[in-house]
């Protein structure tokens, strides 16, 4: 005698069974017992106790959230700082088109590099990858140094010479590259 397969029983449980299976189950004690066993297994699975996380992961989530917020503020600060800086440089260039032009070109170039790296870092950070403790510490250190540098750039934007600003922006680009490498290495490590 042909009996219900497990797929037939699953379909019976879901109310999607074939005409044959629906008829068969009314007369076959073996399949009735199998269907009852399926119901019991499902009920037992639903009744399993909740498994609790062995460690508190909130501190790690909170740290990542703070880093993200810090970067947003810094990016915004860098953008506004850059705009003010660009306006200042433009004004100076209008008055002194000679030697300032070279420094201005250099400044524009290094700022473009910085913006490109910032965009790349945003892409690496959008999906919330989990860093190991060591990698997170390296990244946090680099981000702190970049934050300090951004503060210095904002303070000097009004009075500093282009040459000094170029030096600061170059330093920022160097740190951004290190940060990029730290994140790229982690991405390769986890195979993403």
């Amino acid at each position, binding site marked *: 005698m042909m009996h219900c*397969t*497990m797929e037939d029983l699953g379909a019976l449980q879901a109310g999607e069974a074939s005409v044959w299976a629906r008829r068969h189950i009314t007369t076959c004690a073996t399949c009735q017992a199998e269907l009852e066993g*399926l119901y019991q297994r499902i009920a037992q*699975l639903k009744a399993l106790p*909740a*498994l*609790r996380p*062995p460690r508190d992961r909130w501190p790690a989530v909170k740290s990542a959230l703070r880093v993200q917020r810090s970067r947003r503020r810094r990016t915004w600060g860098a953008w506004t700082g850059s705009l003010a800086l660009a306006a200042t440089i433009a004004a100076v260039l209008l008055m002194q088109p000679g030697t300032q032009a070279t420094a201005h070109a250099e400044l524009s170039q290094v700022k473009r590099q910085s913006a490109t790296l910032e965009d790349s870092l945003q892409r690496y950070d959008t999906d919330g990858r*989990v860093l190991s403790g060591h990698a997170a510490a390296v990244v946090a250190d680099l981000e702190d140094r970049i934050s300090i540098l951004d503060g210095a750039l904002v303070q000097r934007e009004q009075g500093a010479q282009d040459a000094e600003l170029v030096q600061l922006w170059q330093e920022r680009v160097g740190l951004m590259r290190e940060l990029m490498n730290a994140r790229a290495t982690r991405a390769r490590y986890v195979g993403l």
Partner: protein
Amino acid sequence: MTVAFAVPDVLVARAQAGDEAALEALYRAFETPVYNLVRRMLRRPEDAEDVLQETFLEVVRNIKQYRGEGYLWGWIRRIASTKALMRIRRDHVRETESLDDEPGKPGMHIGANLDLERAFERLTETSRAVVWLHDVEGYTHEEIAEQMGKSVSFSKSQLARAHARMRRMLDEGAQA
């Protein structure tokens, strides 16, 4: 374990405004159901912990996108199950090495006193995921297929095979 959590709207609103205390309150409300869900789907506890963390990173970053349609738990559960399934796909090589083929444990001979929980834990991660999402969380085969990037018939056959395997393991455990 089936859950139907409700959290106050004001708490969600505070979390969406970036209130860190409210975000932590959401974490505390959902850490166990999220961990339980992904731990049932994944074999290794450390993987489940990582997915728990990844899930809440996404929750706190995207809570503003939650529009209040349906339960918050449904939104969070979807993020968690998707991340767990992504991990199963990524670790596909490990997935094929079922404990059923573990050295010293040929076939399904796994001894007496086997209860359903242990039988369930011996399934492959894909089977565990399908069984848990369908039988416990109430996902349809269509929803599971969409999340796994597979066909509906794949989900149905995985579920049937998993139940057949659990039944055999329980029978042999009872006879041993």
